[in-house]
């Protein structure tokens, strides 16, 4: 981690006292998002998401494999994230570190627990053969808020993925069966200020981080608190409200791109 000079922290906090952020946004204002799908031909599904200058690429590969013994008729999802050194002067190559593992697990949970993929439809032969879905997340440019960018890219890639039946001589290709996905929004807290969609500087000085995934009905589907700071009940309410509000707009943008 970069040591952000105390001066920078003071600067951000002083601005926050006046209700401002360094890039001119309001506390509950999200950066501009762009979503592009089918960017990698070799992948079964792929998407590039930009949130401000942050860029994340998610790719789906599928293979036929054995199911877990406790779910013999369900497909399997495997999620991995790589903080490749291309994305930031502070990322190093090598096996995934803590940060990458947390990121992959939070995205994985958002997809798995909310049952976005209809895994029960991905069985080929019970107990023997099911589809294994590999979701690989590549961070290309790190300018804050990886959690939201990674999960949005994953959802966009999954929503436009194709099951490669032909390649495995199992019949015709068909679109990966997907349900309405919950949308994740992350807020961070520094010095008692809570802001949504942290920029890189805000990410680096943050005391606490909270990711909330909300669905179409306005229900909460997943949460993850990170870092060693704390939130009050009121702050959590605020974060949830901001997530719901921004989630709606992000959901609209996602369905516009994926046509779902």
């Amino acid at each position, binding site marked *: 981690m970069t040591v952000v000079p105390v001066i920078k922290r003071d600067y951000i906090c002083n601005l926050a006292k006046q209700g401002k952020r360094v890039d001119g946004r309001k506390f509950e204002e999200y950066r501009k998002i762009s979503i592009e799908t089918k*960017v*990698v*031909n*070799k*992948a*079964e599904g*792929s998407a590039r998401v930009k949130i401000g*200058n942050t*860029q994340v*690429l998610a*790719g*789906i*590969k599928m*293979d036929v494999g054995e199911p877990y013994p406790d779910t013999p008729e369900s497909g399997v999802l495997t999620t*991995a994230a*790589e903080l*490749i*050194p*291309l*994305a*930031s*002067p502070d990322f190093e*190559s*090598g*096996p995934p570190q803590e940060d990458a593992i947390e990121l992959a697990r939070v995205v994985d949970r958002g997809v798995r627990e909310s049952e976005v993929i209809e895994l029960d439809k991905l069985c080929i032969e019970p107990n023997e053969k099911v589809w294994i879905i*590999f979701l*690989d997340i*590549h961070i*290309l*440019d*790190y*300018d804050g808020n990886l959690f939201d960018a990674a999960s949005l890219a994953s959802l966009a890639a999954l929503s436009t993925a194709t099951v490669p039946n032909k*390649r495995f001589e199992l019949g015709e290709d068909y679109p990966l069966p997907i349900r309405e996905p919950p949308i994740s929004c992350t807020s961070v807290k520094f010095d008692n200020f809570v802001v949504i969609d942290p920029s890189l500087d805000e990410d680096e000085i943050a005391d606490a981080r909270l990711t909330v995934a909300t669905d179409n009905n306005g229900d909460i589907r997943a949460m993850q608190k990170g870092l060693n700071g704390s939130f009050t009940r009121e702050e959590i309410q605020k974060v949830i409200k901001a997530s719901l509000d921004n989630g709606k707009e992000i959901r609209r943008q996602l369905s516009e791109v994926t046509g779902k």
Partner: protein
Amino acid sequence: MKSDINLIDDNGKRLDGRGIDDLRNIKIEAGVLHRANGSCYLEWGGNKVLVAVYGPREAIPRHTQNSLRAIVNAKYNMAAFSVEDRKRPGPDRRSKEISKVISEALEKIILTEQFPRASIDVNIEVLDAEAGTRCAGLTAAGVALADAGIPMKDIPAACAAGKIAGKVVLDLGKEEDNYGDADLPVAISPRTDEILLLQMDGHLTLDEFNQAMDYAIKGCHIISEIQKKAILEKYQPKMEGQ
């Protein structure tokens, strides 16, 4: 493995309709990443490659430092979803070798003596792969280094030639790479025609080799022009604005 596909048809056209000395389509864009000191996105046929340059910065760990010059640290990495069967993430023997030969090619043309104890890190990410990724990576690295303002003697360009269906051809495509007879990736310094990278596998006679070298070098010169255009596209508007 030989196959019965006809790599060159009766009219002398290849599978994708190219003639024997035609390149695939190439698109280069400089300066596409925010955090990197210099970057480049390149599409070459079905290849998509992203390169970021960081540095010159202090070489870490310290024992890698050279007190007389900078070290050049190129890292070639393939995305898990860039190939037909998912590749396990992380470096394997193939990518380590490619990283090494690309680092050595770049070291030759970067003025490393200007930055003692520093490292210049070149991260090459192959997002979509379809034959010729090392040439694509090295070509994109040249543009990204120029974008980062690293002093160089020249912008390196790379291109492969090979042999398919008994004929020497330029820039092998996917099936040609799989079922062809030889592959010869070459990188040059276009100003001097010095050869920075040269690998070969397969079977070529001496005449075929010379022909393939001619094609590859010719290809490198065409690519060099596309590289220069990409850099001008980014910087010319700024220069005219002054």
